[in-house]
């Protein structure tokens, strides 16, 4: 286990000395300070850190929803100006539209991107089937459980086959069992498609279970304090979480946060 990850030469996403300061009534809030991160193409990156350390801010900056106030971000070598091409996002709340059926909610992605709906219909149905929602295409979101709704919102993000998938605590509101299911499904999808994923979570075991690399952030101001590789074989069964190797990684995160005083052992 190397302390800081080796430099990445073929970065897909490159974050260079990025800083973000929000103006506010009580003066400027420094949400991110000197963040440096290279993301390899096809990599699964988990980001963990205490509440308020700037994880969502980092994700919004990468998504082009917020501008950074210093440094720069490049995607495939091009400086980021607004939302990049080929990106899908999933938030903690599924934000499905109640007046649309599940299928129409998934197709919304194509509509927003300005693609003809009909072209994506078959793909939407396939995705829904892959994520266990066959037979629910014509139901409305309020007829589905929280886990099913979040599955639908993942299908929506995947509809137009994005290269980059940004997920901000997507399973944070789900019960432990549903969460396990979705972790397995997400890992399987990722292995089949080779997308680049940035996955924010509060759960240490979820972070390790899914990731190729784990990024640890800390507060005051928001910054990256450690990055390490997770060398566990794939596909990973849920039971891998009980192995010693897994425990070492989880312990590393816990230990780090304890040292930073954000987690008390």
């Amino acid at each position, binding site marked *: 286990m190397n302390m800081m990850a080796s430099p990445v030469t073929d970065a897909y996403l490159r974050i260079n000395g990025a800083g973000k300061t929000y103006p506010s009534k009580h003066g400027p809030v420094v949400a991110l300070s000197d963040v440096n991160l290279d993301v390899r193409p096809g990599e699964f990156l988990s980001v963990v850190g205490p509440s308020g350390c700037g994880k969502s801010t980092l994700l919004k900056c990468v998504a082009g929803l917020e501008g950074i106030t210093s440094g720069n971000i490049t995607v495939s070598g091009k400086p980021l100006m607004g939302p990049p091409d080929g990106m899908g996002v999933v938030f903690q709340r599924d934000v499905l*539209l109640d*007046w649309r059926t599940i299928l129409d909610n998934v197709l919304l992605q194509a509509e*927003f991107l300005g693609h003809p709906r009909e072209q994506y219909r078959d793909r939407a149905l396939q995705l829904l089937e892959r994520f266990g929602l066959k037979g629910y295409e014509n139901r409305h979101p309020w007829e589905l459980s929280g886990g099913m709704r979040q599955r639908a919102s993942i299908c929506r993000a995947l509809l137009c086959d994005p290269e980059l998938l940004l997920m901000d605590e997507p399973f944070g509101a789900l019960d432990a069992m549903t969460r396990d299911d979705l972790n397995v499904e997400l890992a399987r999808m990722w292995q089949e498609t080779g997308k680049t994923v940035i996955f924010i979570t509060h759960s240490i075991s979820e972070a390790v279970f899914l990731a190729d690399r784990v990024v640890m952030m800390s507060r005051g101001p928001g910054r990256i304090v450690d990055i390490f590789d997770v060398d566990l074989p794939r596909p990973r069964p849920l039971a891998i979480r009980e192995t010693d190797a897994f425990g070492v990684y989880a312990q590393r995160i816990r230990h780090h946060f304890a040292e930073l005083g954000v987690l008390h052992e």
Partner: protein
Amino acid sequence: MKNSLAAKLMRDNRSLDIVLVLLGTTILWELAVRIFHAPAIILPPPSAIWAAFMHSPWVFIRNMLYTLMTTGIAFAISVVLGVIMAVGIVQSKFLERTLYTLLIAINSVPKVALAPLFVIWLGTGASSQLAVAVMLAIFPIVINTVLGLRSVDPDMLNLAKATRASKFDIIYKIRVPNALPSLFSGMKVGISFALVGAIVGEFVAGGRGLGFLVLTAQGQFDTTRVFVSLVLLGIMGTILFYAVDVAERIALPWHSSQRQPNA
């Protein structure tokens, strides 16, 4: 399937309750008037009200239709104008600062008191009546619609921006449908206010309508005829309110089902 049937039965049960309560009240009313010999000028019995109606039903029905027409037209104007204003207010910082501020300020004035002004401006007759009704009905519609248009989940907007949704898509695929439940609750208040406005309009700029009938019957101390008009107004108000309610259930099945946790 079974659930929606259960919900329907629940609803039917409620309308059954209403019918029973009204029937009970009518019987008690009739009995009380007869037992205590209340003079008809104070409180006529339901039987006398019914007789007065049957004596000249077409006069009442004609005037009721007139009031209904005023209410309906005023309501339609309020909805169309109100929605246009609300979209403008949400889309334009300038309109928000001017028009919306003005609307909020006027809204706290007891607007019924402004009714005589319209008679000065527009004279007696239908246009004054309409103006008073629109003035009352449009406020709840604009204000509710503005709130609905604004209350979109910020993450939904983030998602839309991240997928480069057009401004048009954001308004017509997210904001407007999201505002429909609020629009309908504004419309439920608005339809009642339109009726109130029509009556007040007939009071001050009269000539025709149930409000005018109330006024003339009062002038002749014909309490029974006043009550006939009031009962008809009550029936009309209830039917109008439920008409909007039914329209909402049909237009927004997703919303009505959400409101009833077990439906």
